[in-house]
């Protein structure tokens, strides 16, 4: 952080930039919640980017067709949930490995995105959407950020303090023992996949609302950011560890890192490379800490 501040001659810590960092956190944090809670339970979803983009496109399409904003929002969220349910069916009923099942779903959702949009971007003129996307409290804190922080807080509490949350951890550690002790891993798995799908839809919509248009790339690239943030925040790919507090830290690290690169004028293309490398670094750290745990 300090390095960025020095290189950018202070631009990095100006309020305007901090606001930018906070604003760009929204999408990633929603994806991190969805992906992270799945990872704690030992699952994985590579289709969140695809689902979110598809849902944002549907919302934009419906708005353009004159559907009221709440109906468009509801339809998009339902579609997100349906995408998650589809993953859950593939994983639970057909026993696919989560990564391949969700990879297939990702490909299908990309197709639907293109079909809905005919490959073009759809502008969003709805005032409510634009308000959510770009208005700020006290002219500083974006509403969308409030939504995402609120979500992190709520999910953090759910994971740590409710039966459902406890079940997620227990299943991530030992699904078989948890089932024989009376939990229902299948039901939890469905809930988590559907929940992640809905959150992805919300993330996609918030981004589209901010950009005032929905395009076919959408939040596809943020999906890895979501996973990376979760892993950086201590949620192990092996399942059973980590939490939302760590995830928040992971998100902030990730976003400062990315935003810092923008501020010191690293071309945006390089940021794609960097985020891939960051994922690998996060994995290495995860691997090292897992090895340390095993050694103890």
């Amino acid at each position: 952080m300090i390095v960025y501040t020095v290189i950018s001659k202070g631009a990095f810590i100006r309020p305007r930039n901090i606001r930018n960092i906070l604003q760009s956190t929204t999408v990633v944090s929603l994806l991190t919640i969805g992906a992270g809670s799945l990872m704690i339970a030992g699952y994985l979803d590579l289709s969140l980017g695809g689902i979110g983009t598809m849902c944002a496109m549907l919302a934009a399409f419906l708005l353009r067709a004159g559907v009221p904003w709440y109906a468009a929002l509801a339809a998009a969220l339902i579609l997100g949930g349906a995408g998650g349910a589809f993953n859950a069916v593939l994983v639970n009923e057909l026993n696919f490995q989560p990564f391949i099942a969700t990879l297939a779903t990702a490909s299908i959702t990309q197709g639907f995105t293109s079909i809905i949009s005919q490959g073009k971007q759809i502008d969003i003129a709805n005032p409510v959407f634009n308000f959510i996307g770009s208005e700020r409290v006290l002219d500083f804190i974006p509403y969308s950020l409030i939504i995402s922080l609120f979500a992190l807080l709520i999910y953090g509490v759910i994971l740590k303090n409710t039966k459902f949350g406890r079940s997620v951890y227990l299943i991530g550690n030992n699904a078989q023992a948890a089932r024989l002790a009376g939990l229902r891993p299948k039901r939890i798995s469905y809930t988590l996949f559907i929940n992640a799908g809905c959150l992805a839809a919300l993330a996609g919509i918030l981004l589209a609302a901010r950009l005032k248009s929905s395009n076919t790339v959408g939040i596809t690239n943020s999906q890895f950011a979501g996973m990376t943030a979760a892993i950086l925040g201590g949620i192990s790919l092996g399942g059973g560890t980590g939490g939302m507090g760590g995830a928040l830290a992971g998100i902030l690290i990730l976003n400062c890192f990315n935003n810092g690169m923008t501020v010191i004028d690293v071309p945006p293309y390089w940021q794609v490379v960097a985020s891939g490398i960051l994922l690998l670094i996060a994995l290495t750290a995860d691997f090292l800490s897992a090895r340390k745990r095993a050694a103890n």
Partner: protein
Amino acid sequence: MFIKKLLRSSNAALLFITIAVTLLFYIFNNNYLNFDNVRNILNSMSFVGVLSVGMTLLLIGGEVDLAAGAEACFSGVVVALLINAGVPWGLAFFLTVLFGALCGLINAFFINKLGFMSFIATLGMMSVYQGLVTVITQSKNIQIPEQGFWVIGSISLWNVVPLAFIIMLVLMIAYSVVLSNTNFGRSVYMCGGNRHAARLCGINPKKISTILYVNNGVLAAIAGVVLTSRMHTASPAAGSSGAIDAITAAVLGGVSFLGGAGGMSGCFIGILLLNVFNAGLTAVGFPSYWQIVARGGLLVLALCLDFIGARSRRLALERE
């Protein structure tokens, strides 16, 4: 004998489906089987075909490389840069193949040295490669004026069977021999079928896995070069769905996603079916967007068949 064996195998059913699908599309559109279209099908088939050879080996060995498409795309860019920098195209081809091997080695390092799950490591590398390609090309196509290089992608036998297809076929036959007739090939099956047992037989699964990834990188490079040669351009968007297509084709052809089972002939028929299907959708006038959906759907279908196959094998065992 050979025919009898073929008919008994599950590949036969798949082959019949392929023929049926072909005929169906032919009925809808009589131009479907004309020379140009057949050549197009064979051409587009050869790119995924070469990728799926490497992928088939990996899957049999219980591994997977989601970066295969990105590696091919990157290789295309590398060969274009080299040729445009004045390197003779033969040498450029060779250097690109070495580059592919390096990509494979990086995957193998993460998986075998650091112990990452194969899909997550290759997924990370995929995003790294995609990013690098975007950086290098600034998202623009790189034209290759060097006409000598175009030869690989453009010549064809009797004006119907392109060289690229022949390369794919030769590779498939060669690897089929390797798989069934060499110690290495059998070791791949052992690693995928029962890693622990393989180790007890003195096989080093990490070594096998490393070889498979390097091999896959080389094949991806070849696929990328051939595609670039046919297009006369390296495109940053080329082959983005390569890995998924290759996995789909292999699994359709009976290569088990769980490792240890399947072979090259199945992979070939899988490729054929996939491409006949895709080209057919175009021929009967389906919008190209639907093909993306169809591709994902086909992967789910292939996995379902794999799942059902594995279950019926298990049930058959239990009955005995």
